[in-house]
């Protein structure tokens, strides 16, 4: 099978898709009026739907990957892991059945109540707790990071201190100037240096986008074939 089909055609497809999306951005105003604008809008929307549809298809890669790894653990009885893997596969199947609403024909009638129960007391509880465990990690990170080792680290410590105090209700009551200093730092040092980083990052993304459409960012297809 010649190189044309394996590498060049996909790169050409990426280029065409990219050019259409760019044209849609530059030609179609908020309320398309001209016929060419309306068709361009339609083409752009259809392709975006196609991309989302294809992205939904790729979920299967994940399912295969997880089923493969964990069923191998179960079949090989990997010590200290196989029963966790069995439990994972079991829970995944339960969630799929509950999620799809069950099949009355197969005698599985599952109401929305079970789905809400699973999402509230298992999914939401785990997500909320994992998210809140950041309180542990930010505390130990602060304890370690705010140390006056070098001049730079001392500056970091002082700014961190002022910001911490400006957010502590008790200090705000006694030392309101702390809030003004913190706001000044935020307005004139944080917003400015973050803008510098943002501009740099944007240039990086723009050039990467151009390279990808020109087929020069071969990372996504593998360098040589």
């Amino acid at each position, binding site marked *: 099978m010649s190189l044309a089909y394996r590498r060049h055609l996909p790169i050409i497809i990426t280029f065409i898709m990219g050019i259409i999306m760019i044209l849609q951005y530059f030609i179609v105003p908020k309320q398309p009026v001209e016929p060419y604008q309306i068709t361009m809008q339609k083409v752009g929307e259809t392709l975006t739907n196609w991309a989302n549809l294809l992205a939904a298809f790729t979920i299967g*890669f994940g399912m295969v990957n997880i089923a493969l790894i964990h069923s191998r653990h179960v079949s090989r009885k990997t010590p200290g892991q196989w029963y966790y893997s069995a439990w994972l596969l079991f829970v995944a199947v339960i969630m799929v059945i509950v999620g799809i609403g069950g099949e009355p024909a197969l005698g599985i009638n599952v109401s929305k109540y079970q789905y809400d129960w699973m999402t509230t007391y298992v999914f939401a509880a785990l997500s909320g707790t994992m998210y809140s465990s950041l309180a542990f990690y930010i505390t130990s990170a602060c304890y370690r990071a705010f140390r006056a080792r070098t001049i730079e680290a001392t500056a970091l410590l002082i700014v961190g201190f002022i910001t911490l105090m400006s957010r502590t209700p008790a200090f705000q009551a006694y030392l309101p100037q702390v809030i003004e200093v913190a706001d000044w730092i935020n307005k004139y040092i944080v917003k400015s240096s973050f803008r510098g*980083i943002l501009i740099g990052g944007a240039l990086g993304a723009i050039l990467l986008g151009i390279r990808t459409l020109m087929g020069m960012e071969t990372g996504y297809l593998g360098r040589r074939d």
Partner: protein
Amino acid sequence: MADIWTECGIWVAAILTIAVYSFAYRDNPLFKFAEHTFVGVAVGYSFVQAIRGVKTFGIDHLTAGEALYIIPIILGFLMYFRYHKTLYWLYRYGISIIVGVGIAASFVRDIETSFLAQIAATAGINIIKADPAATLGNIVFLAAVATTLYYFIFTFPMLHTGRAKTLADAGRWFMMLAFGYAFAKTVVTRYNLMLGRLEFLLFEWLKLPK
């Protein structure tokens, strides 16, 4: 009937909460159990979302008479040829559409929102203000934007040697101070999250008096 389910739900949620927090101390079987439960539920959840995604983005359009949608559906199945020994490259057509649409739709917007608009905002600063702290602030602002950008210049090494290096160092200093502020600023929001979980454990699970 609902009460038993709710009460049992609260107990399940409480045990999972303690399991996740226990990892902060040590990795242990209870956390490993919670982790595998979480991944299992999440896999089932995203599988259902994927099926809904294929339905809403694809099948619905097809049934609504937009015949062209058969193309992405075919390409979608073709992507599973990547497991095939020789025809593995067939997956690339689907991926090339995802990448072409995804990358272009994103980077073209960066030109305005994160490049031109940011320069325009900087160029629009009226430095001299009535309040001296604001005037000083604007001077610091301009210096910080300029030196941070200067720090990121890669292909002119001479700009980072000798006396010119001080400009790059200034950029690094501004970023360091900004990181210190942003780091400390999140402490409140993270503690607020943990307070929410502790309130659940103390008042809904242990039923302590409010």
